[in-house]
């Protein structure tokens, strides 16, 4: 018998204590009661007024009891499914950390020429095919914009390009609530009907407030559409410390969280118990270049701290990692990606996006993506920690081999070496002579070869011709309305 034995099942990175989380949440509630938020949509203002908010034109002050009520009503877990099999593949709750790409980058790096080019429906489709092939990526965002189609309805083309090329759960962006309505209709076609989509969600809608403390008509109508349809929604403030929120990390967290919680209140008042994922892309404005930094250490620190708050509030969370401010896939990109991925893997936000971004989120790179897939594999090994038990302690085996022997031929080694150790597919560990004879390639060169090989050989599981045709009909219906 072992009395009171405590084991670590994983490694963990935590920034805030429970007391600090409580203090930050309390500050957010104070901001909502004292300052309030602006809501540019009359219907939403009325819902909040009826629930007991104090309304002054567009400015709505929210009593903390409404925040507490929303936190009680909202589901503590969200499940996402494979679009081909309906298998429940992602459970967004607790410390479960999943990884996926980012969405609407205006540019992508053409893997064949290395050129930075405007993204298109075709680049989105190709990117999703690569994401589908990579084992450590769990969900998909578009990694580009369908810029080659009528822009008022680009979102339907973009979703079509995505769902044709991947069976992984998809987080979708849209122009407006009508775009979401069409995409939900398309997802229902893929799922086999509205009830099946509600039971086994294949998509998550993405919307964001405007910092500081504003909810535009566009974001609110998207949020309410998601609530009414009971489709999971990520509502994610994208705040810049020093610019749209205070320069201090605590002030950034409090202000950004107030935006999330006010969104949550309206969402739950719209439809009690609808699935909600707390967002937060919290970083700094670089005061020299003015960029919204995707590689700053404060970014990873804030995201990890926000994960602590999400765990404290028992809310599923949308995190960020695997992205860079570098303009090319170089040492900087590798450093920023590795640091953010390992920290997110250990801090445990659930839906970690933006893997594959370079140039502060303006450009998608498939080389970056396959490198990050490898880094996620390494991070997952570290997070798995060390299993300590009589079999892994191997005292019997050590005795059998004895001083001066070796373990290469023991059954114990054969049983464990593959599960205990992680093996790379892209990272190079070759002996010098073999590395040289294989062409002396850098990581980025090998990554490019892997991308090309996936693009030229990998085929995702296809949707049925009937489903494809119905999806096309929705896209064409939207396009024809747009032309009128």
């Amino acid at each position, binding site marked *: 018998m072992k009395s009171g034995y405590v084991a670590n099942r994983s490694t963990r990175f935590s920034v805030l204590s429970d007391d600090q989380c409580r203090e930050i949440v309390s500050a957010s509630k104070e901001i909502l009661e004292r300052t309030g938020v602006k809501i540019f949509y009359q219907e939403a203002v009325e819902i909040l007024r009826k629930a007991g908010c104090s309304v002054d034109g567009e400015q709505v002050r929210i009593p903390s009891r409404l925040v507490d009520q929303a936190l009680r009503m909202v589901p503590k877990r969200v499940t996402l499914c494979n679009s081909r099999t309906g298998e429940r593949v992602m459970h967004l709750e607790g410390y479960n950390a999943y990884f996926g790409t980012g969405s609407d980058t205006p540019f992508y790096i053409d893997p064949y020429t290395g050129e930075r080019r405007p993204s298109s429906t075709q680049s989105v489709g190709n990117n999703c095919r690569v994401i589908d092939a990579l084992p450590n990526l769990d969900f998909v965002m578009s990694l580009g914009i369908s810029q080659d189609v009528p822009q008022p309805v680009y979102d339907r083309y973009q979703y079509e390009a995505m769902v044709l090329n991947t069976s992984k759960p998809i987080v979708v962006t849209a122009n407006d609530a009508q775009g979401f309505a069409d995409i939900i209709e398309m997802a229902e076609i893929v799922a086999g009907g509205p009830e099946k989509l509600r039971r086994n969600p294949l998509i998550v809608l993405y919307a964001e407030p405007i910092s500081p403390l504003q909810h535009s008509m566009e974001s609110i109508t998207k949020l309410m559409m998601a609530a009414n349809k009971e489709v999971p929604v990520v509502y994610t403030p994208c705040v810049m410390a020093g610019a749209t929120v205070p320069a201090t990390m605590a002030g950034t967290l409090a202000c950004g969280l107030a935006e999330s919680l006010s969104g949550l209140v309206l969402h739950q008042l719209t439809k009690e118990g609808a699935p909600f994922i707390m967002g937060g892309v919290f970083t700094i404005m670089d005061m020299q270049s003015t960029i919204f930094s995707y590689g700053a250490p404060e970014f990873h620190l804030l995201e990890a701290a926000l994960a602590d708050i999400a765990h404290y509030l028992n809310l599923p969370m949308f995190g960020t990692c695997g992205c860079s401010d570098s303009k090319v896939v170089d040492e900087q990109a590798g450093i920023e990606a590795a640091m953010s991925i390992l920290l997110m893997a250990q801090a445990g936000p659930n839906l970690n996006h933006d893997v594959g971004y370079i140039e502060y989120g303006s450009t998608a790179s498939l080389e970056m993506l396959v490198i990050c897939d490898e880094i996620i594999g390494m991070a997952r090994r570290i997070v798995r920690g060390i299993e300590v038990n009589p079999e892994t302690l191997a005292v019997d085996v050590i005795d059998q081999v004895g001083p001066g022997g*070796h373990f*290469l*031929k023991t059954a114990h080694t*054969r049983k464990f*070496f593959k599960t205990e150790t992680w093996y790379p597919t892209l990272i190079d560990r070759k*002996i*010098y002579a073999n590395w040289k004879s294989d062409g002396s390639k850098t990581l980025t060169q090998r990554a490019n070869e892997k991308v090309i090989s996936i693009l030229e050989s990998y085929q995702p599981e296809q949707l049925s011709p009937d489903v494809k045709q119905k999806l096309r009909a929705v896209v064409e219906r939207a396009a024809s309305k747009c032309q009128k």
Partner: protein
Amino acid sequence: MNQVFEEIKQAVIDGDDELAAELAQKVLDEGINPVEAVQEGFIKGIDEIGTKWKSGEAFLPDVMMAADALKAGLTLLEPAVAESGSQEGEPVGRIVLGTVAGDIHDIGKNIVGALLTAAGFKVYDIDIDQSAQSFLAKAEEVGADIIAASALLTTTMGEQKELVKYLVEKNLRDQYRVIIGGGPTTKEWGDEIGADGWAETADQAVELCKELVLDIKR
């Protein structure tokens, strides 16, 4: 083809030395052609592991254990193969392998031994801390083609030179190809002491031995 050959091949691939020995015994007991058992079973199995090792599908423990399974079976079948007078079961070459005097490092040497076994060589491993006299005695006993000496320390590298010198003194330098390896050694060191070859890695050591054996046969 006899079903037992397929089982032997699989036992080698699985690195199951007990099963490999059991199947070799079955070959003898049931009067199955031992040369065919070696060619169609043991060699096919080890070839497959070797191919997988080169392509990165098999890992070192897989190769080491397969080499052991091969050895377990061949040891039992060797007398019968010799009796049959067939040249088919002959190894690619015979190699005496060991770590030089004063040095007890052996993990690299063991890996080289396993990969050579997997490549069809008959390896006589005389273990660690062995004098030049021991290397030669074993080489004479088994009729070796190659003597392979490992050293892991700058302080014991000198023993590789002693080995070559000893063979020269005994007027037997031409009888054997001498190769060296180990962490601190280099091609330059091999040339300096008059060795016939040096390899950085176990895979390169196998290639080197294949070339030397071809050279001997010319």
